[in-house]
């Protein structure tokens, strides 16, 4: 029986024996991550739909409220996230190419950039609290705008908040990768976790690439 003969080359220790071979395991994991990211697109999609609907209904208030966001901090954060995507891609490359010493520095750099993003986001949120621009009981309708501007800020906080939550989860996953990398688990034969977390991280970055123009740039008329 051909199946009973052990395969000529040994599989890495992470091989799960319900798969035929390591290639099948890698393919399944990768497909699983892509399918998960599809669900994430739909997850954010609900809020993007709400944003589009309300922006069409209350264009003046949405543009006015959008002008109250700090575009400098937003642009800075966009740059930070794109940098973090680069360091993440380099970490994936390092693990695939067997440059084991480089994996951890690149992962650390990604965590650092992610944390900078979250810190800046925190500053922005703080400003909004101070200006009474947080929806709810303490919301004060900004000058020259009407009540629907509150909707803009509701969506702003929900969308960026959910995005920030994904960043926090991403940083947790990166820390887990560092622990595994320290134990020397990643080899050119087995680096699926780095690959998959990389996909996730890029996805979270792409969400921001859509959030930034929608929330900060559309209808902008002041710096």
């Amino acid at each position, binding site marked *: 029986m051909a199946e009973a003969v052990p395969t000529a080359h040994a599989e890495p220790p992470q091989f799960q024996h319900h798969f035929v071979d390591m290639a099948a395991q890698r393919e399944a994991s990768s497909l699983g991550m892509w399918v998960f990211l599809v*669900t994430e697109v739909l997850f954010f999609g609900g809020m993007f739909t709400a944003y589009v609907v309300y922006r069409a209904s209350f264009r003046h208030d949405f543009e006015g409220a959008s002008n109250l966001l700090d575009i400098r901090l937003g642009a800075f954060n966009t740059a930070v996230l794109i940098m973090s995507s680069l360091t993440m891609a380099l970490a994936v490359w390092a693990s695939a190419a067997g440059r084991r010493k480089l994996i951890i520095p690149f992962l650390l750099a990604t965590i650092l950039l992610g944390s900078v993003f979250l810190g800046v986001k925190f500053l922005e949120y703080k400003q909004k609290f101070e200006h009474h621009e947080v929806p709810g009981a303490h919301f004060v309708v900004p000058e020259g705008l009407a009540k629907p501007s509150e909707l803009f800020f509701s969506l702003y906080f929900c969308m960026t908040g959910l995005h920030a939550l994904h960043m926090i989860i991403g940083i947790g996953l990166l820390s887990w990768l560092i622990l595994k990398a320290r134990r020397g688990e990643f080899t050119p034969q087995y680096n699926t976790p780095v690959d998959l977390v990389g996909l996730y991280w890029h996805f979270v970055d792409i969400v921001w690439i859509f959030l930034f123009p929608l929330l900060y740039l559309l209808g902008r008329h002041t710096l």
Partner: protein
Amino acid sequence: MSAEPEVIAPPRRVDYLNVRYGVKSWLLTTDHKRIAILYLISVTFFFAIGGLMAALIRLELLTPEGDIFQSEFYNRIFTTHGVMMVFFFMIPAIPSVLGNFLIPLMIGAKDLAFPRINLLSWYLYIVGALLAFYATVHGGLDTGWTFYTPYSTVYANGWVVLTGVGVFIAGFSSILTGLNFIVTIHTMRAPGMTWGRLPLFCWSMYATGIIQILGTPVIAITLLLVVAERVFHLGIFNPAQGGDPVLYQHLFWFYSHPAVYIMILPAMAVISELITAFSRKPIFGYKFIAASSMAIAGLSFLVWGHHMFVSGQSIYAGLVFSILSFLVAVPSAIKVFNWTATMYRGSVSYQTPMLYAIGFIGLFTFGGLTGLFLASMGLDIHVHDTYFIVAHFHYIMVGGTIMAYLGGLHFWWPKISGKLYPELWSRVSAWIIFIGFNLTFFPQFILGYLGMPRRYHAYPEEFQVLNVLSTAGASILGIGYVIPLVYFFWSMRYGKDASANPWGVTGLEWQTPSPPPTENFPETPIVTNEPYDYLTAAREAAVRG
């Protein structure tokens, strides 16, 4: 040859049930078959809760006056009935129990692609369901299972947040199950198990998985917004703050209509297997049935607006949604015609699973045809929110999905438990369920057509006769559900041992012992036959003599 046969006791065969014992071996298992059993127990529990609520509803409606419950409490009862039945029974039932158990067996795999995620999925389901259950025990909520805003976000007095979070968490269970099925069917098929040889059960489960991964995240985010709105007073769906309640309904039904197909596609999956098995004939129109599952999955995302014909949606949107809703009848009819064509000139035997399957075809057709009434806007305005619609979706959900679930449970019970259930009792209960079901829900079509609205605890006196019939039917239906529960338990102890293939049917799951060993097959099977190849199977049996 026959040296000392009486001294050596036959070694006890190790299967997935007796390989390990103890609570821990079940709660930490990653075996898809054991996880299916965990689901079987838990969905049965929540079915019982939902059923109890249904009993209370029918009890109140026995008389025209609201004499048992106040309307406020009645609202909580039907809400709990809906939430429990939809989110914690109907959506997980067939995929998580039968799908979990069967997909790896049917495609010749050792397990699902992600066994640990499969277990995680069960835990998410349990956490979500227990949150909703806790909310129920402590007073429930009165929004209806649809959580319509701004009632749910501003005015409702009840556990909206807790129930919403429960449904949110259970949603992730559903997503992960669908994800696992899709990846498994793509990557774990045995050699020779091509897409064209995939059992129709798996095709339908694959289509279900697509709806689960594309639809569920939308309800997740929508419920998250409802929770955020209720807690932080955001106003996204509150007209007083500029928000739009109709947007909520769009987002809600964007999931919840496809969710109807999460409930019915797995039922069709089961029926396709049962019909061909008990007709002893290759299924008629394999490709059409497989393709119609995918077509239903695709169309399911384009028809949500037919829930909103009277919600202030634009009339042109209504027209488009109406036409698209009619289109769903096409793939559904393809299935029904192919099933009947399979039975035509087959060697049909009327064992219990087949009774359920034939019952399904009749009731599903009835439910489907009344769905066309509702898809046409003019008629829908007349019967909207009446008992007509209650009867329609119960014909699909109860007459369709639960019949198929029970039929499938009977068909694969020998494989799951290794025991045979008592044939006579099971036939009796199948008939009781069929009669009880029709007596419960057929009068509701008439009630709705005459104008009795849903969700009221009192009604005019002229509706009493039909309501009494419906309540009588519900009690018969209840008895019909209790009997299988009793004899399934009975059979585990006293039932006859099942052979590997007690029905004498094709399919990989019947080529391994009952119950199967932990890794399903002694060695990876190689598939050489077309699916449902009863001609070859009969020839081989004849050669073997």
